[in-house]
């Protein structure tokens, strides 16, 4: 078993492994495919399901055959992986090589007939088995053990029958055999299979064991020898010895180019292999003219063989389906007669028939039987190729055997009828990008008329050397390009794994290597090359190398198109490591926040909660209370006033004495400014309050009063003041004893302007008496008098204020800004008491005033007691309700 050294770890591994069993590194560097490189073999066994049915059947037959006789297969068929293009009929190889039962009946019959002569033919045991070995030998071995002349007797009767039937297709064969139109487009591998038949024609001379199928091994050996065979000198410049060329060389022979070699008059000492090739050439194609034209007896029997073999090739499938001749009942017999058919061993072992100038009907009888006995799918292929060559008017000696005109046959409906479907499909252009179409260019060039003619001439001159040259030699031109083109062609048209079963044309070295692959031996689906377009779809290594460092510990793919790659499919779900951690949706709330939230909930709840309304007392009760209180006050005060009661005592105070002293300081007849700045509603209070002061000034000092007011009603109030204070009774006359300065607009500004107006001569006033019911008016006058200057500020300022404004103006009196202030009826009554109870208004109100205060105190106390009683009642009721 061959071993492959791993480039990564340096350890040896079996060659059937794709990756190292130690380090899992890919062993086959060919897995790296770049543009322009040849694809490597890959296991595409999974593609078997998409194969056509007929291919599946064929492969299944091959599998069965291999399973039935593995040991025989191993011995006889070394399998070596080869780089040849895949073959559509590769699977048939095993069928024909490994199992006799799988060999088609018609082929088995042929093998039996050819085997008989091999038994009688002296040949070494170690030589190539059977007649296959001789297929290639005529090309490289000039000396053949078989007689050079093929006898007409050697031609079986069934083949002669074919000659007759082939005449019916003369026209068609003539067209197809034209060298100019010979385009080996349909050079498919099925034709390679016929290489074995090509070998059949050469092998019988050396075949020794009748039933030994080791001839297949010899076939490989012969192929190898063919690769080593020196090419003719005339073609040395064109033909490049290459294994691939040799593999396909049998196609040339099958195609018919080698036919002229057999048609050439060969010396009697020429090898029988030439004759074998002749019959096979006829099998491949052109044969009809050979049968039509009477060949001279002295001419080589190969011409006759070609003629009948052409007829065979031109015969349709039923020709092969005829039952085998009675003599070919066993496989040995088949091989023997086939050996004879090849012309290699028949002349030596069996008496050959005299020269045949024409086909005989008797010989065709057994062939008809053979047609009935055999029923192979590959038979029509032979029929077609036979027909192609059968109709040519060119003498058989100058007609190359070609399968190229198959394309032209497609245009002929009669030919289409006899063309099998699988062959039609093969002939049809593939829908895939067909590199094969390009690869056929060389083939077209190969089939140019001029070249073909030159080859014919060369073949005529070279004799057997030319005859050994394959008609479809792929070594022509650029052999490597041809191989690549074929590779591309068959990669497209069929899976490569099919090529694994083909071994006929593979180089021996590769076959041996392939034979060592256990996988192939154990499994019918051997690792094969992936098509180039499939490998082009594989990830390029440059992209993989970028991530090689990170994916070294990842999984290596072992199956499918990604086999051998590592880290392509992630071992773990994608994104699992990037998935964000689960976060709790529960809020982290502090105690303070919870308190605030609860407070907010309470507020919201209180907004929606219906608050019980407090029961309010009836309005009538309050109104009654108001009426009661109002009536009480009116009755009491009215009674007191109406009765003229003066029972309540009045006590003088020191303040009022000081006021009297101050007034005494005012010069007599001195102008005194009296500021009347109160509302009419307070006229009663202020008249009573200011009465004693004005009375004293008027009575004792005869002061000239100048009334000014910051209210428009001030003048009227001033007149009322003079009238109601008793001053008028003292002889005061308007504009004589008192003056109305009128309304003083402008507020504080007007006051300041009045004070500072020189026309007014404010300094002439000996005193200022401010009568006001609100503290604001008193503040303005106090401030502006202070602002007017020390002289004016030094003048006596007497304040007469209502009871409500008195407390607010008291600071100015306490601060010395005002000399004396009399506020309310209380001060007026006292000052009146000091002033000898003049004018007596205050005193008249005093009892009523006192009564009103007492009523107010009583009402307040009564209300307080009522409230306490009501609360006590509610508490008691609450206690009773609780109890």
């Amino acid at each position, binding site marked *: 078993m061959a071993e492959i050294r791993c480039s990564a770890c340096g350890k040896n591994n079996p060659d059937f492994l794709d990756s190292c069993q130690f380090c899992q590194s890919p062993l086959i560097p060919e897995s790296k495919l770049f543009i322009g490189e040849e694809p490597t073999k890959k296991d595409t066994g999974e593609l078997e399901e998409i194969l056509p049915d007929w291919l599946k059947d064929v492969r299944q037959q091959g599998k069965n055959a291999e399973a039935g006789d593995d040991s025989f297969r191993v011995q006889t068929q070394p399998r070596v992986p080869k780089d040849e293009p895949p073959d559509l009929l590769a699977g048939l190889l095993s069928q024909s090589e490994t199992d006799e039962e799988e060999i088609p009946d018609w082929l088995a019959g042929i093998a039996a007939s050819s085997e008989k002569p091999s038994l009688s033919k002296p040949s070494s045991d170690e030589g190539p088995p059977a007649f296959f070995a001789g297929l290639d030998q005529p090309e490289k071995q000039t000396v053949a053990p078989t007689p050079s002349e093929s006898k007409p007797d050697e031609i079986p009767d069934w083949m002669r029958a074919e000659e007759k039937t082939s005449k019916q297709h003369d026209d068609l064969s003539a067209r197809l055999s034209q060298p100019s139109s010979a385009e080996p487009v349909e050079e498919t591998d099925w034709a390679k299979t016929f290489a074995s038949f090509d070998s059949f024609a050469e092998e019988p001379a050396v075949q020794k064991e009748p039933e030994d199928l080791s001839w297949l091994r010899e076939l490989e050996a012969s192929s190898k020898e063919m690769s080593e065979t020196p090419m003719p000198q005339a073609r040395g410049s064109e033909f490049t010895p290459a294994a691939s060329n040799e593999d396909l060389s049998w196609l040339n022979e099958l195609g018919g180019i080698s036919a002229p070699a057999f048609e050439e008059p060969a010396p009697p000492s020429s090898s029988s292999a030439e004759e074998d090739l002749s019959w096979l050439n006829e099998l491949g194609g052109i044969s009809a003219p050979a049968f039509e034209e009477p060949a001279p007896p002295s001419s080589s029997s190969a011409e006759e063989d070609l003629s009948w073999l052409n007829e065979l090739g031109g015969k349709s499938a039923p020709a092969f389906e005829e039952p085998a001749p009675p003599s070919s009942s066993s496989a040995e017999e088949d091989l023997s007669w086939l050996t004879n058919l090849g012309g290699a061993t028949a002349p030596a072992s069996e008496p050959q028939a005299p020269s045949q100038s024409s086909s005989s009907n008797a010989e065709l009888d057994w062939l008809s039987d053979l047609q009935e006995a055999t029923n192979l799918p590959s038979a029509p292929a032979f029929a077609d190729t036979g027909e192609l060559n059968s109709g040519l008017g060119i003498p058989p000696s100058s007609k190359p055997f070609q399968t190229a005109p198959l394309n032209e046959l497609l245009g002929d409906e009669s030919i289409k009828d006899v063309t099998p479907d699988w062959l039609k499909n093969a002939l049809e252009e593939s829908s895939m990008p067909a590199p094969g179409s390009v690869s056929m260019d060389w083939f077209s060039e190969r089939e140019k008329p001029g070249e073909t003619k030159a080859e014919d001439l060369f073949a005529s001159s070279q004799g057997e050397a030319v005859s050994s040259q394959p008609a479809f030699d792929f070594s022509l031109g650029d052999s490597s390009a041809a191989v690549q083109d074929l590779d591309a062609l068959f990669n497209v048209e069929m899976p490569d794994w099919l090529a694994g079963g083909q071994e006929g044309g593979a180089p021996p070295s590769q076959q041996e290597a392939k034979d060592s692959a256990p996988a192939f031996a154990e499994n019918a689906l051997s690792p094969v090359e992936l098509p180039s377009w499939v490998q082009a779809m594989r990830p390029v290594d440059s992209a993989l190398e970028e991530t090689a460092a990170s994916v070294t510990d990842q999984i290596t793919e072992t199956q499918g198109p990604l086999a051998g790659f590592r880290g392509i499919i992630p071992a773990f779900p994608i994104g699992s490591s990037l998935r964000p951690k689960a976060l709790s949706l529960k809020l982290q709330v502090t105690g303070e926040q919870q*308190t605030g939230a609860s407070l907010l909930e309470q507020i919201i709840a209180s907004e929606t909660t219906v608050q019980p309304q407090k029961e309010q007392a009836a309005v009538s009760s309050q*109104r009654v209370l*108001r*009426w009661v209180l*109002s009536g009480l006050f*009116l009755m009491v*005060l*009215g009674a007191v*006033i*109406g009765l003229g009661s003066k029972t309540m005592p009045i006590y003088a105070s020191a303040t009022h004495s000081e006021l009297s002293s101050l007034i005494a300081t005012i010069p007599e007849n001195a102008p005194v400014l009296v500021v009347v700045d109160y509302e*009419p509603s*307070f*006229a*009663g*209070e202020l*008249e*009573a309050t200011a009465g004693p002061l004005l009375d004293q000034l008027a009575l004792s000092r005869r002061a000239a009063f100048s009334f000014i007011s910051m209210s*428009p*009603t001030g*003048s*009227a109030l001033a007149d009322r003041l003079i009238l109601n204070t008793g001053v008028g009774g003292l002889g005061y006359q308007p504009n004589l004893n008192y003056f109305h300065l*009128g*309304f003083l*607009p402008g*507020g*504080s*500004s007007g006051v*300041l302007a009045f004070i500072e107006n020189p026309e007014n001569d404010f300094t002439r006033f000996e005193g200022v008496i401010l009568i006001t*019911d609100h503290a604001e008016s008193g*503040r*303005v006058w*106090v*401030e*502006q*008098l*202070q*602002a007017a200057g020390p002289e004016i500020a030094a003048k006596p300022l007497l304040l007469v204020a*209502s*009871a*409500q*404004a*008195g*407390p607010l103006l008291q*600071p*100015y009196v*306490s*601060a*010395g*800004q005002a000399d004396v202030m009399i*506020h*309310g*009826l*209380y001060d007026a009554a006292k000052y009146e008491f000091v002033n000898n109870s003049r004018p007596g208004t205050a005193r*008249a*109100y005093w009892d*009523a*005033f006192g009564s*009103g*205060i007492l009523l*107010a105190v009583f009402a307040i106390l009564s209300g307080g007691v009522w409230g306490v009683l009501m609360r006590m009642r509610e508490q008691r009721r609450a206690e009773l309700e609780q109890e």
Partner: protein
Amino acid sequence: MSFEVVSAVIGLLLTLMVFSYLIGDNPLFRLAVYLFIGVASGYAVTVIWHSVLVPRLLDPLGNPNRLAWTVVPLILSISLWAKLSPRISRLGGFAMAVIVGVGAATAIGGALTGTLIPQVEAAMDSFDSSEGAVMLAGTVLTLAYFQFGAKRAPDDTIKRGAVIELLAWLGRLFIAVTLGVLFAGVYLSALTALIERLSSIINLVKSLLGL
């Protein structure tokens, strides 16, 4: 019947109409109020015309010597009429600015010289006796009552500090006394007015009855 008796009777009726408010809002009360407002307004306009406009604005126009001093106030007074129309209200802006500016300046000057400084001096002088201490205590305690800063108690109740709470309670007493005094002054003024009205009515009735 003399004018004084008629005026007294009218006065009596209007007084009774105002007293009718004891039984609620009624047309007599409203009539008395509207009449008082109307008479007061008419009387004010008359007073302003006769006491202000004629002697201080119109009369100087006839005196060429005082004409120059009268034109400027006249223009400013007329410009104030522009305030009635939004389109030309800008014309009265200057006059209004003069009025407000002069009034503010006068008030500030008078407040400083007539109230702030003298009252500060008086407050300082008041400390010669116990009056100043009472004034200071009353002032501080009253201000302490309006101190609403508080902290959260351990039982999550919001309360002011104990000292501030005590001062505020005392300040509330000062405020209550002050408001009581003011209310008492209002009551005394009203009571005096009521007495005067009742006395007037009674005296009228007596005079009418010949008592």
